[in-house]
């Protein structure tokens, strides 16, 4: 039972007042995993900031480090991980806190919604208990207050017949309902920052729309900051203020959402956008293809990490890693020597097409690319 370790946490110190909008600052965060094969650089020098009430979309292919990044900020890493860099949350250095101290932040200030609602709920515990758990640990409410709060939480995530649900088990609910319960639990103590790690990937498209609407609504009501992790640019397009595109452990492009879609600079972002089938296109449209696969994070290439797959690649890209370069629009940064939509980029692409570089042809015509195992 929870009761035995029940304690009321002191309110975490830190500046969570709404006058200071800056909530999260991540500076040169690196998370490396020690494995028998060597050091895996899952997150390799990521910096960004997030204000309260804002949503940051974190996009990339599987294995790009987007989930590890959110777990690194939460402090939910296995013991094989080495983390360095600074994480300031409401002015507090989260990276300097141990797991004990972090417990006061988990649930109350930092919360997380995971991809699979079935595995993130306890199958043998009633819904009501699972919601009550964090309220018991973090607040000094009495039993009745907790029940009332749990009820109003279930109602706020639009679960019908909330009262009956309190006494049900997760298996009695559908996938969408379970994800609503997970969101209710994550919101129970009114966190200032919510990580939603692929919250809708396991759900149907109609339910996905409902859950994303719910997250947006809760965010506005609570003035909460949200990091929405997804592999689908479509999901984050209409739901975020800013987007960070990750590739091989690094942020390769970051911009306000509208700017990112209107003025793509990073070839990888462009490739992601073009390879997704779109309903506006007639059927049997040939899809643009990104050839190859992401680099090995144990021994990343010394130049640009996308170079081997990039249609714009030039000799310089293979030698020298581009830093995050500022674009014309404030807040827009990208890592590329020959950015999309610039004369330099156009020349590079033309040169590659003339030289019949396979990945350039694949990107333009969707031609088949060699895919041998590495």
């Amino acid at each position, binding site marked *: 039972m929870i009761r035995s370790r029940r304690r009321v946490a002191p309110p975490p110190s830190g500046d969570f007042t709404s006058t200071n909008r800056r909530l999260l600052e991540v500076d040169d965060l690196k998370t490396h995993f020690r494995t028998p094969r060597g050091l895996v650089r899952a997150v390799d020098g990521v910096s960004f900031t997030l204000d309260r009430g804002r949503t940051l979309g974190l996009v990339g*292919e*599987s294995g790009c480090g987007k989930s590890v990044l959110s777990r690194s900020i939460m402090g939910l890493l296995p013991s094989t991980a080495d983390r360095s860099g600074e994480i300031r949350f409401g002015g507090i250095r989260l990276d300097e806190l141990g797991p004990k101290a972090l417990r006061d932040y988990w649930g109350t200030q930092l919360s997380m919604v995971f991809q699979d609602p079935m595995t993130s709920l306890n199958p043998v515990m009633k819904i009501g208990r699972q919601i009550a758990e964090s309220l018991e640990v973090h607040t000094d409410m009495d039993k009745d207050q907790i029940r009332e709060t749990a009820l109003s939480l279930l109602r706020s995530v639009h679960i*019908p*017949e909330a009262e*009956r649900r309190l006494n*049900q088990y997760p*298996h*009695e*609910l*559908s*996938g*969408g*309902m379970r994800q609503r319960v997970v969101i209710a639990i994550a919101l129970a103590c009114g966190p200032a920052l919510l990580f939603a790690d692929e919250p809708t990937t396991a759900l*149907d*498209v*109609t*339910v*996905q*729309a*409902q859950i*994303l*609407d719910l997250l947006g609504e809760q965010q506005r009501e609570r003035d909460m900051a949200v990091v929405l992790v997804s*592999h*689908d*640019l*479509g*999901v984050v*397009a*209409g739901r975020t203020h800013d987007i960070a595109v990750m590739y091989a452990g690094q942020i390769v492009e970051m911009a306000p*959402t*509208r700017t990112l*879609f*209107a003025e793509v600079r990073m070839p990888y972002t462009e*490739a*992601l*956008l073009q*390879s*997704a*089938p*779109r*309903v506006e*296109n*007639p*059927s*049997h*449209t*040939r*899809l*643009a*293809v*990104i050839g190859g*696969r992401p680099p090995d994070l144990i021994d990343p290439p010394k130049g640009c990490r996308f170079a081997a797959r990039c249609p714009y690649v030039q000799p310089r890209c293979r030698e020298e890693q581009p830093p995050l370069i500022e674009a014309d629009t404030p807040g827009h940064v990208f890592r590329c020597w020959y950015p999309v939509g610039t004369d330099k980029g156009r020349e590079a692409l033309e040169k590659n097409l003339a030289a019949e570089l396979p990945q350039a042809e694949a990107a333009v015509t*969707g031609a*088949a*690319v*060699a*895919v*041998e*195992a590495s």
Partner: protein
Amino acid sequence: MAGTGTAHLRDANETLLRVEHLVVDFPAARGAKVSAVADVSFDIAEGETLGLVGESGCGKSTAARAVMQLPAPTAGKVIFEGKDLAALHGEALRRMRPRIQIVFQDPISSLNPRRTVESIVGAPLKIWKLGDEADRRTQIDEALDAVGLDPDVARDKRPHEFSGGQCQRICIARSLVLNPKVLICDEPVSALDVSVQAQILNLLEDLKERYGLTMVFITHDLAVVKNVSDRVAVMYLGKICEIAGPDTLYASPAHPYTAALLSSIPVPDPEAPPRVSTLVSGELPSPLSPPSGCRFRTRCPRAQERCAVEEPQIRPVGEGQYVACHFPLVGGTAPDPETAVAASGPASGGNGAGSESPGETDSPSDAPAGTPELTTPGGP
């Protein structure tokens, strides 16, 4: 939605595969049964790709598997090359199996981790004792080459040495090695990253041309189905709602459910106007006690009293477009807003013959209440 009827079927000699009144029942607890597929008919012309779309639990995978007789349907006919597969048994059915092959959703779990690629792709040839060692080798190499894997590199490796996309290529090679006529793709790209997904979709298009394949493509992703299909059937709770060419279907959906599905697709464009939520609320009702009349009515914004009473029949509403709806969005009469009732609303005169069965939930949000999600064997 409801979709009984065969108005959408074409002339028998124009089609390669024809499925009529397919029903697949599964036993449920306490002697109940679940009709995962309830009277579905469709046909596929040679060289055509039929897309089957719908939410999970709508019966799309079950329908496709029933075509392969895995398991055989409870009722209905599956006519392929003039024979009813559902009536075949034993050796006669086994002889038909190489003609219809399937590619599954999760490429990694559909490959034996302990066997080499050569042995995996060559297994069908071995089972059918086709050719000698050298012939087999040539065929394996050809199949691997066709799916974009270098036979010399891939042959002696095992599945764990490949990425998800490459494993899916191996699965496709294995299904092609027997030269099937029909390829059933059950969510072949759902487990893959978007960049890999594009490669596999392009590959399937190439192979379709090269081998003259006829395909059934099952997916919940409407953008994917639009890309690959020549005809799309939208399923809901074991029935077909609408069937049409992809461009027609996406430009002017006739069934409210199709419209709802389309408006749920996230658009990768922040400038896209915010969608009006004419969206379906709630979730799929339990297939144990499906709503009376039209099965979609509990979530349908256009539902009328008639929808609870009478099951709509599939009928043509446009060029090659068929819909099972009393009040379709095109080619039909709009419901009178005066009498429009929410699905749960009180009956107001008219032909109100139907009283709902007591076991039924009638408000949309109630629909999934307390009913464990149905898992059909082998469903996604």
